C-alpha cells in the first residue's frame, strides 16, 4: 500500500476509535454518573481543549499569551449565533430531529466558530512580529478584553443580558471526541517537522532564525491553531450552558494558563492533567464551603514553590513506558 493512503487510513481509524470511544463514554456517563459529575466531566473536557491549545503557544512555542478566553468567546458567540440565526434557515426547523441530523449543523457551527477565532488569532499573532515577552502578553490580554467588551455591545447576541435560546447540543461524547482529536492533532504536530521548528523558537529564537526557521510565520501559525481550538472549545461551551461574556473575563485566561503551567509547560499530557485537576479541585473542596477558594489559592502557591516546573514538567505520560520492562530514559519530545 502506498505510504500516503496508509497514513490516511490510519488517521481514519484513529478518528473512528475516538468517536466510538467518546460515544461509549457518553452512554456510560449518562447511565451511571449523576448529572453533577457528568457536568463537571463536560467542563473538564472543554478545559482540556483550552489548555492543550494554549500549551502550543505558551509551552511549545515559548510565546506568552494571556488572552485565550477572548478566542474562546469569539468561537462561543459565532457558533451560537450560527445555530440560532442560520441553522433554522438553512437546515429547516426539524421538530424531533434525530441526533444525527442535528449533528451536521452543529459541526458546521463549531468549525465556523473555530475559523473566526482563528482569524482573530491571526490578528493577535501579527504584533508578535514586533513585540516580545511581556509586551506580547499584555497585547493578548488587551485583545481578549476588547473582544469581550465588543461582544457586550452587540445586541443581536444578547449584549449584557447574555445570549439566551441556544439549543443544548454539547454532551460528553462531543467534548470527549473533540478533546481527543485535539490531543492527537497537537501531538502529531509537535512531533512533525513544523513542531520542531516551534520548539526551536522556544529554545532560542535568534538561533532558530539564523538557521532559517521563518520564526514569524511559525509564531503566527501557532497563534492561529491555538485560537482555532479555543474557538471550537468555546462553541462546545456555548451549546452546553448559559452564555454570557462574564465567562470570558481575564480570570478565565488566567485559569487556563494555570492549568498549563501546573501540568507542565510543553507537556500535552500535563495540560490534560492540569485541566482535570483545576476543574475538579474547586468542586472537591466544596466541603470547606467558604474556605475552599482560600485553600485553592494556597495550594497553587505551595505547588509553585514546591514544584516550579509543573506536575509533569516537560515529561509526557506514556503507556508504553509504563508497561515496558526496561524503562527508557525519558525522551524530551515536547
Amino acid at each position, binding site marked *: 500500500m502506498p505510504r500516503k493512503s496508509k497514513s490516511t487510513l490510519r488517521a481514519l481509524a484513529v478518528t473512528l476509535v475516538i468517536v466510538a470511544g467518546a460515544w461509549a463514554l457518553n452512554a456510560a456517563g449518562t447511565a451511571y454518573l449523576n448529572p453533577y459529575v457528568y457536568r463537571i466531566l463536560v467542563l473538564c473536557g472543554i478545559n482540556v481543549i483550552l489548555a492543550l491549545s494554549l500549551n502550543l503557544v505558551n509551552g511549545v512555542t515559548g510565546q506568552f499569551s494571556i488572552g485565550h478566553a477572548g478566542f474562546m468567546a469569539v468561537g462561543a458567540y459565532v457558533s451560537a449565533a450560527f445555530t440560532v440565526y442560520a441553522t433554522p434557515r438553512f437546515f429547516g426547523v426539524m421538530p424531533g430531529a434525530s441526533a444525527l441530523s442535528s449533528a451536521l449543523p452543529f459541526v458546521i457551527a463549531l468549525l465556523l466558530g473555530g475559523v473566526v477565532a482563528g482569524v482573530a488569532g491571526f490578528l493577535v499573532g501579527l504584533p508578535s512580529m514586533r513585540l516580545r515577552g*511581556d509586551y506580547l502578553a499584555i497585547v493578548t*490580554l488587551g485583545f481578549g478584553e476588547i473582544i469581550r467588551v465588543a461582544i457586550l455591545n452587540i445586541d443581536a447576541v444578547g449584549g449584557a443580558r447574555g445570549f439566551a435560546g441556544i439549543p443544548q447540543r454539547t454532551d460528553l461524547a462531543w467534548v470527549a471526541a473533540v478533546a481527543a482529536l485535539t490531543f492527537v492533532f497537537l501531538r502529531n504536530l509537535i512531533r512533525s517537522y513544523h513542531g520542531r521548528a516551534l520548539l526551536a523558537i522556544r529554545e532560542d529564537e535568534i538561533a532558530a532564525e539564523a538557521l532559517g526557521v521563518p520564526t514569524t510565520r511559525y509564531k503566527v501559525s501557532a497563534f492561529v491553531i491555538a485560537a482555532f481550538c479555543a474557538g471550537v472549545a468555546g462553541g462546545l461551551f456555548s451549546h452546553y450552558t448559559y452564555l454570557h461574556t462574564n465567562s470570558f473575563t481575564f480570570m478565565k485566561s488566567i485559569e487556563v494558563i494555570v492549568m498549563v503551567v501546573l501540568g507542565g509547560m510543553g507537556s500535552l499530557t500535563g495540560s490534560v492533567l492540569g485541566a482535570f485537576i483545576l476543574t475538579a479541585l474547586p468542586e472537591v473542596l466544596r466541603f470547606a464551603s467558604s474556605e475552599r477558594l*482560600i485553600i485553592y*489559592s494556597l495550594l497553587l*502557591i505551595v505547588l509553585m514553590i514546591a514544584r*516550579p516546573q509543573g506536575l509533569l514538567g516537560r515529561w509526557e505520560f506514556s503507556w508504553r513506558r509504563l508497561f515496558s520492562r526496561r524503562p527508557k530514559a525519558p525522551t524530551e519530545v515536547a
Partner: protein
Amino acid sequence: MQELFQQLANGIAWGSIYALIALGYTMVYGILRLINFAHGDIYMVGAFAAYYLARLLHAGGPEPSPILAAVVLLGSMAICAGLGVAIEYFAYRPVRKSGRLTALITAIGVSLLLENLGIRIFGADPKFFPQLVAPRTITLMEGVIVTNHQITVVIISIVLMVALTLFVQRTRTGKAMRAVAFNRDAASLMGIPVNRIITITFAIGSALAAAAGVLVGLTNPKIEPLMGIMPGVKAFVAAVLGGIGSIPGAVIGGLVMGVSEYLVVGYISSTYRDAIAFIILILVLLLKPAGLLGRNVAEKV
C-alpha cells in the same frame, strides 16, 4: 467645551490613582521582571485597612479632622508596606530562581488568596468608606465643578510621586535600586544588598498602592474585596503604556488611561470604558514597542 474640561478634570483625578498603582507595578517589574498580579489586591487591602482604621479612630464623624485623616492614610500605607514585604518574603523569594512563569503563577495565586481572604474576612458585600474629609464642591470655571476630594487626590498623588522621584534619584538606597534594576548580578557583585533592596521596593510600591486605595475610598466611597482586579489590570496597562520600568512613564500612562476613559464615558458610551484603555495600548505598542518612555533594549546574541 465645558463638558470637555469637566471630563478632563475627572480623568486627571482618576488617572492619578492609576498612576499611583502603576508606580508599584513598574518598580517591581523594573527590579524583578515580575508582573506582580497581587498589586491590585494590595490596593484593595489598603482601602480596607483605612476603613477599619477610620472606624477605630472615629475619624469619619460629622466633623472630620485632617490630622486623623492623615493618620489613617499613613497607617494604611504602613500596613500595606508590611503586607507587600511579607508577600515577597514568603511567596516570591522562594520562586525567584525558578523562572518567570512560575513566579507569575505564584503572583496570581497570591492575588486569588488576597481576594478570597478579603471576602472571608471583610465580607463580600460592599462597605461604605467613611468621610475622612468633609465633601465640598469647587467651581474651577464656568460649568466645570470638581470636589475637594478630587483635588486632594491629585495633590497627594503629586506629593507622593515627587517624593518617590527624589528618593530614587537622590538617595543612596534609590541609587542601589536603580543599580539592581539595571543589572542584578553586577549590583550584587558591587556589594549592594540585593535582597534588602527588593524588600524596600516592595514596601514602597505597596505603600503607594495603599495610598491609591485610600484616595479611591475618598472619591468613590464603595469598597469591596474584588475592587482591585480591574484597576490593577489597567494600572499595569498604564505602566506598559508609559514604558515599564520608567517612573515618569507610569505617571504619564496612568494619566492617559484616566483621561481617555472619562472622554469615552463623556462622548461615546460608558460600556466602552473598559476597552478604550486596551485599544490605546495596542496602538501605542505597535508604534513604539517599548512604550512611550521605555528604552528599546537591543537583544544580545
